[in-house]
């Protein structure tokens, strides 16, 4: 039961660990891609949670199989919450609606005049340029002879997977771009 409670509160611990890492380590060593780094960070943190669960919360008389089960349970459960945390961070970084909401907030409530200028200048070409640069930083795209090509990896695989699986939910009807919710 202690394991379950530990897992339930793990997102809070992950957030605190993320704040610590961002404010200390990444202040001096800026990562190439924050998203890629966060994925690795969450994998490591979930592994540490699993080890902590075995070390602190598993009775000494447990068999190796039970110890392995406790590790796996903690690792998988905290990784699931970590995945949700990754999307939350990703929304704060990439979501267009969140970006617009925060700009309106800064302009209206914090009287930040540059926020209004940025909001007006936020057009399609700027959005695409930001995304191209981000995809290059993440290693999903590569610039060769002034042309962008895809690189094999997680994001290219995800793009194909989502395109293939979408018809299972919606048939051949393609979603409109304005159906994008907070995901992008």
């Amino acid at each position, binding site marked *: 039961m202690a394991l379950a409670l530990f897992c339930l509160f793990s997102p809070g611990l992950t957030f605190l660990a993320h704040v610590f890492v961002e404010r200390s380590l990444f202040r001096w060593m800026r990562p190439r891609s924050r998203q890629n780094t966060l994925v690795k960070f969450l994998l490591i943190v979930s592994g540490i949670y699993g080890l902590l669960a075995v070390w602190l919360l598993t009775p000494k008389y447990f068999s190796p199989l039970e110890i392995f089960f406790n590790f796996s349970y903690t690792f998988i459960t905290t990784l699931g919450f970590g995945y949700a945390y990754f999307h939350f961070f990703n929304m704060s970084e*990439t979501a267009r609606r969140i970006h*617009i*909401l925060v700009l309106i907030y800064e302009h209206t409530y914090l009287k930040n005049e540059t926020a209004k200028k940025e909001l007006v200048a936020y057009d399609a070409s700027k959005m695409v340029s930001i995304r191209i640069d981000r995809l290059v930083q993440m290693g999903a795209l590569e610039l060769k002879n002034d042309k962008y090509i895809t690189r094999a990896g997680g994001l290219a695989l995800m793009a194909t997977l989502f395109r293939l699986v979408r018809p299972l939910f919606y048939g051949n009807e393609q*979603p409109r771009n304005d159906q994008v919710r907070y995901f992008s």
Partner: protein
Amino acid sequence: MKLLFLMFFALPLVFLGMTIVSFEWRWLLPSSVFLLSLCVVYIQSFPGFQAVSPSLEMVNAVKSYLPEGASRQQLIDSVQNDNLLSARLEDLERDGLTQRQANGEIKLNSSGLFLARVFFWYRRALGLPRGDG
């Protein structure tokens, strides 16, 4: 989307409620937490199937230009017809997050203000500037 949230958050919460009522903490709590973890994974993944993610669409767009590859301008042109800002502002208004005033100014509704504050302070806590969108 609201139904999805209701379904996948309500189910683990019902489990947690049963845990409290039945006092079967030992068995029900670990399974409830595990179920909750799987549910949040599904909830976070589902919008990817439901809606267009511009980044993933851009990767697909580049793939369609292979093996030569796509120039920056070709990629920008591929989404130029999308009137980004006004379309997103209309979406925000339709979802009840913002409200257009009589003088044309856009005001945040309570839910919009809540979301904006959460993300603003989250970035502040991390010591990061505002996301690029």
